[in-house]
């Protein structure tokens, strides 16, 4: 079956994100303090602590959990809560607000069953940090699916971060950019396949390879 033409007037311009970290002066020694700060910090703080592992530990598989889960497990040694926080399914959330609410809900439910709070050893408090994302253009532009696959193999991890994670949660566009563009080409099946990926369960390189594999599969189908 012939697919839609693979050339469209609207090219895909790959962007990239570069992050700078701000310190907030907020720190928590126990779960009550963590919760208190979590309620009032900016969305950029929540984004930082749920996403910086993606960039800083892009080579690890499986990914380490978010910072909250890591601190609760490794510093407070509250393993059950740590597991619950690590299990929060980030891909389900369309806004940082709803993600924050879920994290708060999980901690509150745990605290309701606990009387005594463990305190972090001195020097291992949770320091709240904030992400400043700079969005920059890259030299990579794709006009066709074949060019798109080629660019995907060459772009940096900052581009994957921007088009998969930033646009969904920080810019609240609902989905990733790649599947949106494929849809605009009339490539609905490919778009659905990319949109179905859970990018949080891949390393950055694994994620790149999976998108490339899906696009190549589609290109082979079109050649038949």
């Amino acid at each position, binding site marked *: 079956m012939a697919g839609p033409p693979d050339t469209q007037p*609207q*090219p*895909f*311009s790959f*962007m*990239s994100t*570069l992050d*700078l*970290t*701000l*310190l*907030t*002066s907020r*720190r928590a020694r126990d779960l009550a303090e963590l919760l208190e700060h979590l309620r009032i910090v*900016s*969305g*950029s703080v929540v984004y930082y602590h749920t996403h910086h592992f993606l*960039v*800083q*530990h*892009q*080579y*690890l598989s499986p990914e*380490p959990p978010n910072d909250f889960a*890591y601190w609760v497990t*490794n510093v407070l040694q509250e393993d059950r809560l740590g597991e619950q926080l690590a299990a929060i399914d980030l891909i389900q959330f369309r806004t940082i607000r709803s993600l924050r609410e879920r994290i708060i809900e999980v901690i509150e439910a745990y605290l309701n069953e606990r009387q005594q709070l463990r305190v972090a*050893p001195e*020097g*291992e*408090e949770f*320091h709240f*940090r*904030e*992400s*400043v*994302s*700079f*969005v*920059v*253009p*890259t*030299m990579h532009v794709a006009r066709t699916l074949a060019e798109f696959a080629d660019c995907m193999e*060459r*772009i*940096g991890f*900052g581009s994957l971060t921007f088009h998969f994670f*930033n*646009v969904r949660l*920080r*810019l609240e*566009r609902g989905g990733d*950019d790649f599947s*949106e*563009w494929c849809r*605009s080409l009339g490539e609905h099946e490919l778009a659905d396949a990319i949109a179905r990926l859970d990018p949080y369960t891949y390393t950055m390189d694994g994620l790149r390879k999976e998108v490339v594999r899906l696009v190549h599969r589609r290109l082979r189908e079109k050649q038949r």
Partner: protein
Amino acid sequence: MSLLDGFEEFVGRGTLDELRLLGARLKDRKIVTVNSTAVGGGVAEILNRLIPLSRELGVDIRWDVIKGGEDFFAVTKRIHNALHGKAETFTAHDGEVFRETTRRNVAEMDLDADVLFIHDPQPVGLIEARKAGRGRWVWRCHIDVAAPQQDVWQFLDGYVSRYDASVFSAPSFSRDLSLPQVMITPSIDPLSDKNRELSEGEIAAVFDRLKIPRDKPIVTQVSRFDRLKDPVGVVVAFRLAKKYNDCRLVLAGGGATDDPEGSEVLRAVHEAADGDPDIHVIELPPTANLEINAIQRGSTVILQKSLKEGFGLTVSEALWKAKPVIAGAVGGIPLQVTHRYSGILTHTIEGTAFWIKQLLNAPDFARRLGENGREHVRTNFLLARHLREYLLLFLFLEHRDERVIRLDAMAPDRASL
């Protein structure tokens, strides 16, 4: 080949393209950076690397050094100690010496620029030269000021609070300030003698020269002979592990010749080692970068069992050599080691001994920690990242209230693509 191109094999072409793009955004800005010395010390070392790279990117950056007499630097040395929490006397006369030297420097220096990037306490007073509406001022603090002597901090805060932004190396080093605080961690240079690749021949030559046999696994700590690095604790942990695993310990470092306390610590280490032929205590001069590199590369497990630490960049040096690292969870070390992912964090001598045994007996796990550690350093602790964050910092000064900053000339929402 350009200086920047030398980094391509470590960070990739894409990272260099990003740097060039940021450099282009800063082309029409004039930047002046000021510290207190052109040679010696970590700040001068890093500026000596970063300034030529920035210029290669087309950034107009000038590096100036303040001038001061012995009395001024005696005062700033006491300020430095007091910021670290050591009790020091700070008199009204000290304050006047500081202000007078600051006034002279303000009068003599050309501080007319778009960005004034001032390092550490010595030149902090240059903010007096600030003109209304001209230039953004950043104070880059390289030291831990979390628990300073209050009167000294209050004196400095009179200057610091007038800056547009501050920069600290780790969250635990900072203070509650009313100005934005940016976190920029230090970095290592993969091309320096301390970190460059070495051939097996070069490594073997250093071990031969230092008379360290390589017949069994080698556990190493490289650091000054300083109580806060707990070298005696390292010897005790090694002995606990050695009951079950035959291995050698190398304790290599300096600080014993020019520091009376260092000599005392070295004596305590020799006493604890008690003539054990498997414990090698090596005194190295500050210039022994190649030796340190070889010792780290020839080791099986590397320790940094600090009780208190600055940033602890020796951890990144060891991780860059893909070595499994066991380190104290203090200072900047937890930023470099994620427990059980890219290394091991410990709190006690017993815990250190436990993990030495674990890593010697589980070489696959140890290798994975080392590989993860090297990748972590590649992404987060190499000079290219450091440079990128300084460039981002200069751009951030123009967008201090924004958290998503678009540097593309295109329309803010390109969602239709």
